[in-house]
């Protein structure tokens, strides 16, 4: 399954969910769906904006863990 580590990066950059959502152009609710791993899909454009604001790589946000049942499928 794919694990989202957005909360880790947000803590490292010391930015709140609301502020990041505002900068990225998403609603806090949508960003929360992504942060909690409930999103079904992520657009490249959204991922790009998040990485730009957090100054990180996609691999910093997304991690693949084998042999775990995904919860959002």
């Amino acid at each position: 399954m794919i694990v989202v580590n957005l909360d880790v990066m947000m803590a490292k950059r010391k930015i709140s969910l609301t502020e990041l959502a505002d900068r990225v152009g998403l609603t806090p609710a949508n960003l929360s769906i992504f942060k909690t791993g409930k999103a079904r899909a992520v657009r490249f454009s959204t991922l790009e904006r998040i990485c730009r604001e957090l100054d990180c790589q996609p691999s910093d946000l997304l991690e693949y863990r084998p042999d775990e049942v995904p919860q959002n499928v």
Partner: protein
Amino acid sequence: MKTNYIKRIRIVYSLYGGILLICCGLFFSNIISSEDTPQVGGIASHDSDYAFTITNLIAAGPLNTDEHPIENTPAGVKAHAHISHFDMDFYTRDEAIRNDARIGWIVALQAFQIVCFAAIIVLVVITLISFYRSAKNGHVFPERKITLLLVIGILLVVSSLSTDTGTYLERTLALDLLRDTQWKPEAHYTIHFTRIFFGLTLIFLSQIFRIGRELQEDHELTI
């Protein structure tokens, strides 16, 4: 855009509600004006020998092939009648016939049909109100309403089959009693596909709506 489709939903609902009201009015006025016809298992108070009535029997040969000339038609017009369906009242004091097991099953199936129809009407009203409210909030395919559609479809199929089974039992009962007469009815199990088709269509639509709901969810959960 949201205002537009809410207006369209209101127009559709108003038209549908109007047609339903007219149909209900015609239906109930028909009940009020119809004669009190005893059905299978009913006992009329004016004749203690009356046992039951079986309606809408399908005539078999020679009834449905004999031609009955009609007299006093307009000049130059000839007409013949063919008997295709008939109703029949049965009178007997024979308890074995009055207590035939099939009569009990027929009455039970009729009661079951009434319950099904009442449930279908209630569920249709609930579904229509729920869909309207959900659509106003932008949720067209809520799971509970999809399940209601599925249940209505299943009830339509089941009630249709119970109607056909009750009709078949009536016909076999009539055939047994009229076996040695010239008024033999047909006694085949006939499936009336209209209601079954409508029920299957609702079941099919509920599954399509379920797929639509999942697609909508995928879209909402794509960031």
